[in-house]
């Protein structure tokens, strides 16, 4: 049998069910792996070894007592923006250093109810603002495929941990590509469900009309399972859509014969790295060989997406982050009066990108500029949604690159925030439209750096998306590829 830390989530469940290992064995194997490699990767911000092992033993006892659970005994790690009762939740920010979550996010509670062992806090761009994880206020995350390159962001720790076998699956959040882009850069599967599919309760809000929680996994079936478990209406989030979770595992194997796959012509008009384009075009050929029919579609407002996104996302962020004022939680810097205290607290507690976005968001909502910026962006958002509604009349799914290029180097884009924002061009439209999207590995640029194929489905048609993803994965050899991350035997168990 392969090492425990190389197993997929489903393989881990099988091993646990057969009794070839216990949850404690699996959890210990991950703790050892993290101890051996994470000083180079930097994916974890916090890990409570004793608590994780105690929770694993509790899962083993539950199994011994004959109790079930779709995730019983499997360790999972959370992006540091998801509240887990009794665990720290810093959102990658100094302002929340020391904060301990008083309750579970609904998505986390649902994983726990199925028996998952929740361990570890994963590094991220501060308050999920960033595309490279360079905005973490703690330490950078390195791409397991090339330690000189970024893992993507904002869920960089969640992606890198799965790629480096530090955990079999993790959760992240996606406001403009923060799951799909790092999944693409790190060669793992990453899913952003439709807006309203997964409750946002307990996800520290960045942009409430765009945020969604989703999984990172080593294979499509694992992502389907986690999405099923987390989905469904929640009385604690009135924007979660009532109704049962979608059946993805049962439907994803139906194949894609006769599926029409849309290729947005605007996405293929330059601005894309040649190696990425070649891999995505090869993937389209593969889908064709599987019986799908590629059709050209148009998303005419694509060129306005970044401008629209950075107005709406920053406007919502400026309101959401007003709560970090040093009164009820987080760190406080004393002041002579409340306003002085707020300003000192926020100036010391937030990093540059967060400040920049709060200021931009405050500006576009301020008197005299609201109509020109915010209201206008909301109207363009409606046009972007309309583009997708039209496109999905002629196809069941859309395929694009997840990112314009493979992972870039540290410092390459930090000097120019706009260049960093523009790298999100293929992912932000999904969130603006509220549809679902995912990234699956589709090869390696230059033979070494992972590239992700983005698959988009209509709102609440995750089943379409998973059918394409599963068919593609099963027909190609990318599943099971892992980075050449040497382990110094002396470090194991450190």
């Amino acid at each position, binding site marked *: 049998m392969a090492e425990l830390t190389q197993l997929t989530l489903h393989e881990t469940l099988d091993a646990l069910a057969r009794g070839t290992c216990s949850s404690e064995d699996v959890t210990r194997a991950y703790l050892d792996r993290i101890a051996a490699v994470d000083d180079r990767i930097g994916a974890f911000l916090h890990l409570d070894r004793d608590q994780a092992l105690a929770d694993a033993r509790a899962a083993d006892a539950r199994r011994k007592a004959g109790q079930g659970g779709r995730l019983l005994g499997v360790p999972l790690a959370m992006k540091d923006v998801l509240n887990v009762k009794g665990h720290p939740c810093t959102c990658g920010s100094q302002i929340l250093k020391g904060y301990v979550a008083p309750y579970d996010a609904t998505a986390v509670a649902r994983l726990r109810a199925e028996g998952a062992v929740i361990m570890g806090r994963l590094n991220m761009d501060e308050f999920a603002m960033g595309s490279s994880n360079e905005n973490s206020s703690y330490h950078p995350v390195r791409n397991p495929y090339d330690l000189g390159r970024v893992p993507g962001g904002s869920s960089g720790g969640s992606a890198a941990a799965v790629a480096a076998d530090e955990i079999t699956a993790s959760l992240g959040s996606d406001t403009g590509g923060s799951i799909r882009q790092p999944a693409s850069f790190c060669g793992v599967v990453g899913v952003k469900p439709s807006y309203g599919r997964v409750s946002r309760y307990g996800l520290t809000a960045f942009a409430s009309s765009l945020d969604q929680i989703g999984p990172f996994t080593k294979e499509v079936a694992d992502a389907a399972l986690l999405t099923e478990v987390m989905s469904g209406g929640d009385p604690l989030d*009135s924007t979660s859509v009532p109704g049962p979770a979608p059946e993805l595992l049962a439907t994803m194997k139906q194949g894609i014969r006769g599926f029409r796959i849309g290729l947005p012509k605007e996405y293929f008009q330059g601005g894309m790295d040649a190696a990425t384009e070649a891999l995505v075009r090869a993937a389209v050929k593969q889908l064709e060989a599987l019986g799908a029919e590629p059709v050209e579609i148009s998303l005419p407002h694509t060129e306005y997406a970044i401008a629209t996104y950075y107005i709406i996302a920053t406007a919502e962020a400026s309101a959401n982050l007003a709560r970090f*004022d040093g009164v009820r939680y987080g760190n406080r810097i004393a002041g002579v*009066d409340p306003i002085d205290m707020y300003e000192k607290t926020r100036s010391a507690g937030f990093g540059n990108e967060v400040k920049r976005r*709060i*200021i931009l968001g*405050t500006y576009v909502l301020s008197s005299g500029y609201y109509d020109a910026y915010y209201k206008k962006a*909301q*109207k363009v958002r409606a*046009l972007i949604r309309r583009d997708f509604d039209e496109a999905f009349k002629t196809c069941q799914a859309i395929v694009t690159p997840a990112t314009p290029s493979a992972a870039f180097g540290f410092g390459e884009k930090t000097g120019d925030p*706009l260049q960093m924002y523009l790298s999100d061009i293929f992912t932000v439209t999904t969130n603006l439209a509220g549809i679902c999207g995912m990234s699956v590995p589709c090869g390696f640029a230059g033979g070494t750096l992972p590239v992700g194929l983005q698959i988009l489905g209509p709102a609440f048609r995750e089943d379409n998306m998973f059918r394409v993803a599963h068919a593609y994965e099963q027909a190609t050899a990318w599943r099971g590829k892992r980075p050449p991350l040497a382990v110094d035997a002396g470090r194991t168990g450190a």
Partner: protein
Amino acid sequence: MDVNANAPASPEKIDVAYVAHLARISLAPGEQELFQQQLEHILDHVNKLNELDVSGIEPMAHAIPVKNCFREDVERPGLAHEAAMRNAPEERHGQFFVPRILE
């Protein structure tokens, strides 16, 4: 995508120091100049939206057609007082302690 050189310049430049104060953030002198330049650059790109005619388009506030989610007006369990106070930066007599507001 390049920054569109043809987009009309914003009528007035963003006053970063003023907006930062509205957002209750104070900026160091170097920070203020850096943000001024970066945010002007970003707003130049954002002004691209002026190319579009959006008359007659309803603004879209969020992506799903769900409105007015009501629940029964009954008492529900909430966070215990002690749990709510646990992360308080400064607490006195079981309450959040803040600087004096009124003279």
